[in-house]
């Protein structure tokens, strides 16, 4: 299989889908400038630059989706989604329901986020949880070039609005990507490494951090299973529960802040549906509840690191059942 970067994989998926379906089009601030190859192949009507106005970019996508087109919009950096929340949440997310099913909104909204480029808090804010919390939307945040391609294909073909997040740190990471059809269904997690002592659940760049941690743990005789959620909504609850039923221990890892994040959702799911399997507390390793700093060492400290994961996993496997008495907690 050819090696492609994440950015190339996304580009390939978009080009292939545009070839397959003439209703697919893409626009955004600088989209045409940055993709002359798409303009050359599909023409200026289907590959457009827009004025600098995220609200109307997303709104235009929603209106077009409701009336027969299948738009992809590039909204650049996740914090800019703040200017498009009404269009994404109140319109694209709700109007199918509010119309009693008369209209659907097949559209994809792309945004980059995540630490690693020291771009600071107005360009880097991991907002995926907002959209998981909002009805009618789907949310994707892959970790490998092949998944970026396959999930982009799935997102474009889906009849619903899909938020598609690109972790900046992954954009230039190369990996094997199938040519042509690479479809990865929305809503399916992937077991990246099998294990039996502890489950590490993650998505985006921190999947790789989890894999690194799992290596270290393996050297110490701790067998960690690494689950890559890939799609955050719909969440693959079966895969999460299956793994925790096996290992009895859970660490959830993401760069987004903890409060009401995806890790909270996964932890709550497990505390409800796999409680009987749990041998130890559920741990979240996340970015701090602070704006993303720009300064390089601060930004590195912001991103969950492998040693925090291994330390947490070690603590969990050391927990002895039956559980300690209430008084023993801090």
């Amino acid at each position: 299989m050819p090696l492609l970067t994440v950015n190339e994989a996304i580009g390939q998926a978009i080009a292939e889908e545009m070839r397959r379906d003439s209703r697919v089009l893409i626009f955004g601030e600088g989209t045409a400038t940055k993709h002359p190859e798409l303009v050359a192949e599909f023409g200026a009507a289907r590959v457009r630059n827009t004025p600098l106005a995220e609200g109307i970019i997303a709104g235009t996508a929603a209106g077009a989706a409701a009336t027969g087109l299948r738009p992809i919009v590039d909204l650049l950096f996740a914090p800019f989604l703040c200017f498009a929340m009404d269009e994404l949440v109140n319109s694209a997310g709700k109007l199918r329901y509010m119309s009693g099913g008369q209209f659907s909104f097949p559209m994809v909204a792309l945004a980059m986020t995540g630490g690693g480029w020291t771009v600071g808090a107005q360009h880097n804010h991991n907002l995926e949880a907002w959209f998981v919390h909002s009805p009618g939307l789907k949310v994707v945040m892959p970790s490998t070039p092949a998944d970026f391609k396959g999930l982009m294909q799935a997102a474009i073909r889906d009849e619903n609005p899909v938020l598609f997040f690109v972790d900046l740190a992954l954009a230039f990471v190369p990996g094997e990507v199938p040519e042509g059809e690479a479809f990865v269904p929305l809503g399916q997690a992937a077991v990246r490494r099998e294990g039996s002592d502890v489950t590490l659940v993650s998505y985006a760049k921190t999947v790789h951090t989890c894999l690194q941690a799992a290596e270290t743990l393996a050297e110490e005789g701790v067998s960690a299973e690494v689950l890559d959620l890939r799609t955050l909504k719909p969440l693959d609850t079966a895969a999460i529960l299956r793994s925790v039923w096996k290992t009895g221990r859970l660490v959830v890892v993401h760069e987004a802040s903890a409060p009401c994040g995806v890790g909270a959702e996964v932890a709550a799911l497990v505390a409800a549906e796999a409680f009987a399997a749990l041998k130890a507390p559920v741990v979240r390793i996340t970015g701090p509840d602070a704006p993303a700093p720009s300064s390089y060492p601060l930004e590195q400290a912001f991103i969950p690191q492998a040693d925090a994961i291994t330390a947490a996993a070690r603590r969990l496997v050391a927990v002895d059942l039956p559980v300690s008495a209430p008084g023993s907690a801090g």
Partner: protein
Amino acid sequence: MPPTRPLPPSRLLLERMLLIRAYEEKIIAFHEAGPFPHVCTSVGQEAAAAGVVSALGPQDQILTNHRSAGHLLARGADPGRMLAEVMGRITGYCKGKSGTLHISARELGVILTSTIVGGELSLATGAALSREMLGGDGIVACFFGDGAACEGIFHESLNLASVWNLPVLYVCENNQWQAFVHRKETMLGDHIAPRAAAYGIEAVTVDGNDVEAVFEAATAAVAKVRSTRRPFLLEATTYRQRGHMEPHDQSYVDPAEIAAWRAKDPIDRQKARLLDRGDLTPDDLAGMEARARTALDDAAAFASASPFPDPAELTTDVYA
């Protein structure tokens, strides 16, 4: 898609206005009878709705705002299914899920009634893009208020429609009020139309209480948008004769302002004109009014007798 209709003559315009008024009066009557969902009535603005919608073709689409009964009825919507929606019944246009103020009706080309002020402006460009890219000569009519023209999305929508050459007929019903705030507190100048020039968009202001003038201006505007494939802004100057919503409250409005505008009521005006011209006899008029009332009595009976949705509907239609 609604059936093609011959260009409506002045009587048809009156008939449509009477139906809209009868609908709003039925809402008011419901409110007087007891608790009923909030509704924003368009009493006093019927000419803008009837005049513009009557100028559209069947291939055209509509997006509108919370004060949309007139646009829907002029487009041929069934007042029974509209009332059913307001009352949350399964027979409503949206199965009762959206309720008052949010009716969409795909078969009529009514894509959206947005109660997010400005929501119609944000989706209209996309609908027009579809019209352009999927072929045909359809255009999109987007109704919004003077208040919506304060939202940033107004600016973004007009600018995009202009640089992308999208066939949107923007229709601003400037009814002087924005919920509890008078327009004069929210903008300098008296009109929205002059703002269009900033985007290179042509605009016209019309007396929104003169249904024939509105129809004429709208017919010209529709033809222009259809042939140029460019946006156009039509501002209809009119007045919201009642409170922002039912139950009615106008305690914060200058009574002299209300009185002055009531004297310019669009329906009274069209009645007088047709009677004057001899295009209508008092008997004709009585018949028309009676038909409108009967239609609404039937509609109300239908809606009231309709069942509520099954609780299982709570979570259907979320995803396609």
